[in-house]
């Protein structure tokens, strides 16, 4: 079906273009008139007038068709459906739909349902055919309208370019629409969550055990939704990651920008970027199957009690993943410090390391702080490494050898389980997502602000 539509659309498109262009070229060749635009623009003009209304009507029709047909069937079955709850009506409609498309239904359908299913099938076929006919009639009508208007004085190019400009503007608003969509969808679901669980209990509560009773009197059903242990776990793992990534990344950046030769730089820089290109699933696998058992064995031989899903394992591997972020951002910042400052320092007799420590790094400090903040934001939002290597139970501790859980792990486990969508347990995931989004957004804005505000103007 879809293939047929696409083929028809493409043929309408090429027909309109060819005809429009031919008519314009005809004017130029036969009558010798001066065309305002190139013939191809007249073709494009015809195409736009033919195809755009068709597509618009197709879109609206396809969206409206389903609900409209369903409403009509419901009106037919009004007698049967009187007094049923919303979900029961939904089941009846499912039966009708399944019967109509030849699928199986639950139990033997009554004759009224069978009639309704037959009517449904009929309506769908009629609607599809009607959609096809009406839309393409509209398309041909649009083409005819445009074809009639093609003459040498028509400013086809301007019209076409104006339409193109509208498209360009529309595509650039998609970025805003996405942000708006994220914020709205998260807020909507989070509001539903906060209607059931008080806001301050969520933000400041100390116990996280998201269980909801499925039926009355179920044991273990009291849900506590205090998110502080989760935030603490996220912070612990991020701090461990920064302890690994910051020194290594910073010193690599310093070496590469100050001491390394061009050849060394051109070889090592892309290799370090490999660390950034490895998918996080691979890091998670590595952390869960190699690093965590290794740490546990080392801990056992030394006498420490290291959990098999320790925060140290997940944090260390996350740190390895973040090294290229810190390193490349710091590298850019350090290279941007003007050479004149370094040379002034050398002129006073300082060694290279003293110059770096006392002149270059303080000058580059805002940029480095911004880079570190961005790295922290990346660490907080990281999902796969912690899902595979960190634990699932919320644990309020500062011990890096214990198993902790993070915000992203909780979001994944809450949403890939099998609770219904309305229960506070699943909605808690959206609340956590909202908190995550807001925190990373703030970190990014602060990082940018810091860089912009404290950046020294040297030229």
């Amino acid at each position, binding site marked *: 079906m879809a293939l047929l539509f696409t083929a028809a659309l493409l043929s309408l498109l090429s027909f309109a273009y060819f005809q429009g262009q031919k008519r314009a070229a005809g004017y130029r060749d036969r009558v010798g008139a001066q065309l305002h635009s190139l013939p191809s623009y007249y073709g494009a003009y015809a195409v736009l007038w033919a195809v755009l209304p068709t597509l618009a009507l197709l879109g609206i029709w396809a969206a409206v068709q389903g609900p409209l047909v369903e409403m009509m069937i419901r009106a037919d079955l009004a007698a049967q459906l009187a007094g049923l709850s919303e979900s029961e009506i939904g089941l009846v409609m499912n039966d009708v739909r399944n019967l109509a498309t030849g699928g199986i239904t639950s139990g033997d359908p009554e004759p009224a349902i069978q009639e309704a299913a037959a009517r449904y099938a009929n309506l769908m076929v009629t609607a599809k055919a009607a959609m096809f006919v009406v839309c393409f009639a509209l398309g041909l009508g649009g083409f005819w309208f445009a074809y009639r208007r093609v003459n040498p004085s028509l400013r086809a190019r301007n019209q076409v370019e104006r339409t*193109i400009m509208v498209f360009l503007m529309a595509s*650039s608003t998609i970025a805003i629409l*996405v942000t708006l969509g*994220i914020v709205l969808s998260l807020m909507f679901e989070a509001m539903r969550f906060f209607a059931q669980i008080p806001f301050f209990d969520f933000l400041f509560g100390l116990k996280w055990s998201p269980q909801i009773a499925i039926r009355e009197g179920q044991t273990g059903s009291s849900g506590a939704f205090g998110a502080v242990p989760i935030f603490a776990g996220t912070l612990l793992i991020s701090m461990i990651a920064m302890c690994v990534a910051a020194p290594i990344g910073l010193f690599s950046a310093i070496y590469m920008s100050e001491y390394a030769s061009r050849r060394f730089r051109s070889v090592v820089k892309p290799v370090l970027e490999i*660390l950034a290109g490895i998918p996080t699933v691979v890091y*998670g696998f590595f952390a869960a199957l190699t690093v965590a058992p290794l740490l546990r064995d080392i801990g056992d031989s030394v006498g420490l009690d290291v959990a098999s899903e320790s925060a140290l394992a997940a944090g260390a591997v996350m740190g390895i993943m973040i090294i290229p972020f810190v390193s490349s951002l710091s590298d850019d910042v350090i290279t941007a410090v003007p050479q004149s400052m370094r040379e002034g320092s050398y002129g006073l007799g300082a060694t290279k390391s003293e110059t770096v420590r006392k002149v270059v790094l303080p000058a580059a400090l805002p940029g480095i702080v911004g880079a570190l903040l961005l790295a922290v934001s990346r660490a907080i939002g990281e*999902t796969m490494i912690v899902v595979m290597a960190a634990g699932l139970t919320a644990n309020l501790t500062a011990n890096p050898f214990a198993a902790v859980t993070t915000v992203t792990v909780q979001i*994944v486990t809450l949403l890939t389980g099998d609770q219904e969508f309305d229960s506070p347990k699943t909605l808690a995931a*959206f609340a956590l997502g909202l908190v995550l989004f807001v925190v990373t957004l703030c970190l990014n804005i602060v990082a940018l602000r810091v860089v912009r505000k404290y950046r020294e103007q040297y030229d």
Partner: protein
Amino acid sequence: MTDTTPDVTVPPDTGLPKTPSEASNRVRQSLRRRYAAEKRFRMYGLIAIGLALSFIVVLFTDIITKGHSAFIQSHLTLTVELDADSVDPQGDRSPESLRDGSYRGITLRAFFETLRGVSGRADQREALSLLSDAADITVRNAVLDQPDLVGTTATLPVKFGDDADIFFKGKSVAVEGLPAQSTATPSGTQGEITITADGPAFTAILEQAKIQLRDDIQGLEDDIAGFQRRIDRYQEELSQATDEDQRADLRDSIATMTDAIATDTEKVAGIEARIANPGDSEVLTRESSSYLIRINGGVVKVLAAAPNRIEGEVFFSLDSDRRADEGSWQIMTLPIAESNRRLSDKQVMWLWDLEERGLLDMQFNTTFFTSGDSREPEQAGIWGAAVGSFFTLMITLLLSFPIGVMTAVYLEEFAPKNKWTDLIEVNINNLAAVPSIVFGLLGLAMFLNVFGLPRSAPLVGGMVLTLMTLPTIIIAGRAALKAVPPSIREAALGMGASRIQAMTHHVLPLAMPGMMTGTIIGMAQALGETAPLLMIGMVAFIVDIPGGFTDPATVLPVQIYIWADSPERAFVEKTSAAIMVLLAFLITMNLAAVLVRKRFEKRW
């Protein structure tokens, strides 16, 4: 006249050098320190880079060592009697008839006959887990391919199960040999027999049994210590208790503990006597290593050992009960205790025997590349995930490339410098830094709930990934457009082109290499994304290969995530092999991006 000697005051000690040589000394020392600090600082930088590089090396080595064996699958060269009655029920060799035939019976019968020493249903059940569940399907496919095989005896390679496969790749338990001196004489050829040697040939086995006894002693001594601690505590409570009932209770408890200590001390003494006495035989338990004697063409499992005699159970019948000379019989050991591994001694012996007889065939694992996911590791493959990834990436490319290029063009060339444009730019930069899981939440809330699109479909996955890669493409596109010099635009405008014409005909083609590089890199990032796809449901167990954009599918990184959670040991190598395939794809894409950039980029 007074002596006008000048008033020489000693200058205060300011720490400054008093003589030129002292000054140079000080300078030399401080220079040495500063140069040393300089060298150290430089070393730190090199160490940091070295650490980062070593992480890469360690990661790759780990993945490759774990995964390279997944590309090989162990097969059994099985001789199957394709009896016409079971294989071809309708007797006409038509595909329907052949498909209806029952292959499981003849396959299993052939398998049990190939193994040595399978007697009884218990043995059959134990042997069954060594063969893959798909073995009979392999036989059926062979018959369907060549109907002429009906009624003949065919030799086909069938897959081993995952436990056997791991054994053949050397990852579960090794069969090691021990030196055996002196001759040995078995007392029979079947059942439970005794093997007598004319020298202390079995002391190694006895030592192993004694190690187990020593472990038992350790356990008992720990218990005794625990009892003693409790007695001490009770004594303390007794001295402080005032209530008569309580005192009686405590005395009873102390008496029980004392008795327990006495019993255990007796046990310890008994075990120590057994250890000290070299002549007695000891029973081997499941918690100690296993020992098997290969003698006279058969194999005997050691149940109890004395220095010059063992009692054992015959696994594979011996040819005769003649005396075996030194060097013609052998002691084999399985170092890992039977309770710590998945394969029993008998199963290991069957597999070892098949390998000895040359019936083991290691072939390239084509199943890995041609089949979808499965619960059985030897039948699991990445083809379903690869096709799903392909469809998802296609949708992502089709959606993100046009939108990204159009946005970049608009922002760079046509947008007026006002607040609205600033807002768009800020938004794009923010979106580039949002965690990927938030995009998954957006996809879940909007595409699945509001728009009602099918769950787990490449269509929805592609749309979510589009939203994620758009910022990358837009930023790369803007950089590419900025790099085109204004002279090109102005020359085109000077020739009478409109702004859009100048853009489409002149600027865009020149900026295209940079845009394509950015797109390829964005696609590579999208290929490795897992978290947002988990949210929209692509984490289901999908066995069929998806056929279109709305069929339920999974992608390669999510497949890796699912397999990494599986408990079977064989999935570790499959996961590593899938990671190798994924990394290979990513390296290819990144290399392609670098090549495009090098080949087509113009430096102005």
